[in-house]
């Protein structure tokens, strides 16, 4: 437990001093995708639902947050909340439709609706179509905190990301989260114990959509523009890649995956198409050799060493649901 606090403290220090050494916009992008990866992990890792169109919540909220800021100039947190609210509502609707099916059919329904949302965003006049929504103003937070430079704004984004991760942690480790994990492991059994699984899955879907909306809205305020790329399929697939790379069903894996993918994209961006090819190769390597993902493999290694040290120590679950430290 103390070890964990130590690591958290160390991480906090690194995050606080990071913008002195690295380009803050890259860091903020990572933080946005950390939130996005958490929202996706809540569904795939902790409920067992593969959403194939998560970009609709991310990009949809980016437009809504941007539109609110451009037209009303309300303080920043209200615009972000507007994006979260819109994404949650969309999540309620999409979940209500798609959760009637499960597995691959569920994935395909979410994919189809996401394509539909993409088309709507392309056609709607307020999004700017192919040109995207430009010049989104970054208003003051709570009407008082001015964070107009990227350096200052990094700390706002960091605070929001920390709160989001804390919320994600809380959801996973709540009475509700316990039922979600049970549904992931064996849905018919949950039903036989007197629960209606679809209600739990719908709430998880809405929470996930809201969190994804926060990530998208935040990204729109970081770059001060929102584009069709934010609602497009590559965003939906990238978050799947982040989750698999970091470790499906681990608490921290998808966040680590988000950081790696963004850094990699950043690094490879000068190579154009090669970025995509490299991503593909990495995915293949992970699927073939590191099925548990980076964090998953690390957890497994740690467990192995611990059991070696004390043969009587119990091996814990493969899903790191109880050992969120890693």
């Amino acid at each position, binding site marked *: 437990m103390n070890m964990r606090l130590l690591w958290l403290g160390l991480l906090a220090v690194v995050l606080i001093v990071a913008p002195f050494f690295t380009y803050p916009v890259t860091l903020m992008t990572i933080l946005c995708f950390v939130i996005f990866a958490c929202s996706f992990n809540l569904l795939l890792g902790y409920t067992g639902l593969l959403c194939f169109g998560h970009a609709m919540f991310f990009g949809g909220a980016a437009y809504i947050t941007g539109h609110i800021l451009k037209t009303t100039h309300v303080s920043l947190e209200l615009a972000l909340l507007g994006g979260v609210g819109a994404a949650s509502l969309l999540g309620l609707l999409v979940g209500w439709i798609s959760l009637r099916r499960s597995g691959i059919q569920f994935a395909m329904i979410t994919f189809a609706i996401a394509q539909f949302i993409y088309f709507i965003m392309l056609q709607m006049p307020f999004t700017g179509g192919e040109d995207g929504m430009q010049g989104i103003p970054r208003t003051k937070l709570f009407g008082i905190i001015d964070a107009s430079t990227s350096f200052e704004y990094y700390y706002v984004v960091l605070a929001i990301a920390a709160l989001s991760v804390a919320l994600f942690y*809380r*959801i996973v*480790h*709540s*009475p*509700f*989260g*316990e*039922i979600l*994990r*049970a549904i*992931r*492991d*064996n849905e*018919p*059994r*949950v*039903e*036989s*114990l*007197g*629960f*209606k699984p679809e*209600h*739990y899955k719908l*709430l998880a879907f809405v*929470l996930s959509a809201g969190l994804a909306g926060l990530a998208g809205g935040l990204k729109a305020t970081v770059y001060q523009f929102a584009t069709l790329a934010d609602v497009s399929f590559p965003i939906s697939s990238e978050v799947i890649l982040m989750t698999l790379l970091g470790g499906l*069903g681990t608490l921290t894996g998808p966040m680590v995956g988000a950081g790696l993918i963004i850094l990699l994209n950043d690094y490879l961006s000068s190579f154009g198409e090669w970025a995509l090819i490299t991503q593909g190769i990495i995915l293949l390597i992970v699927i073939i050799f590191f099925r548990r993902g980076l964090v998953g493999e690390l957890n497994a290694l740690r467990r192995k060493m611990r059991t070696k040290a004390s043969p009587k120590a*119990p*091996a*814990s*679950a*493969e*899903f790191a*649901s*109880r050992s969120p430290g890693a």
Partner: protein
Amino acid sequence: MTSTSDDLADYALTARGLTKQFGGFAAVNNVDLSIRRGSIHALIGPNGAGKTTCFNLLTKTLAPTRGTIIFEGRNITNLRAADVARLGLVRSFQISATFAHLTALENVRVALQSQYGKSFQFWRSLDAVAPLNRRAEELLERVGLANARHLAASDLSYGKKRALEIATTLALEPQVMLLDEPTAGMGHEDIEPITDLIREAAQGRTILIVEHNLSVVSTLCDRITVLQHGELLTEGTYREVSSNPDVISAYMGGVDEL
């Protein structure tokens, strides 16, 4: 088994004219079944007799094509599995139905949560359900899993998984427990503890069990219903049923067909 209204009061679970058709094939055909309150009742029959289908109909996992199911005087034919579970009719599964990545304690606590009313609280920590831990530990102790409470269900042996499943089912304090082949795939050394556990769990409740192992049925069950080709063959005590020539030929016939 003619049923007058007096009779009905003695039965926890009754089915009348239960039929399930898959396409043109009737897996269960016009079966009448009455489970006396407080008894351990077995449903047996050769392979393909429709036991599991019949079981799935009674537990609402499948919807019947025709027929009615009455549980404690209430028509449950059109209710869902989750609804009948809340009424006190809870099933187990043939394939061990634990939550693999949850600990033994969490497995039982999930079941306890179903009547605790906090299962939608995503903003509370697990402290909110900590009051359930004591009851969960009692249940684990009762099935001999006190030392395994922090082990993931996937790390338990096969026999212990079944015991955990029974603890989870008992957590709902069901009036009627429906057990689907509780000793399937078990070695000798595991069967006895499980049958003891079932006998103990039967105190004050009714149990319907689908079982292949006839020696388990003979020692455990008060009453036995035999199905063949989806239809009711006979019903009675083990002694009656086992000496019934139709039953003998049904089982022998089953072997011949193989």
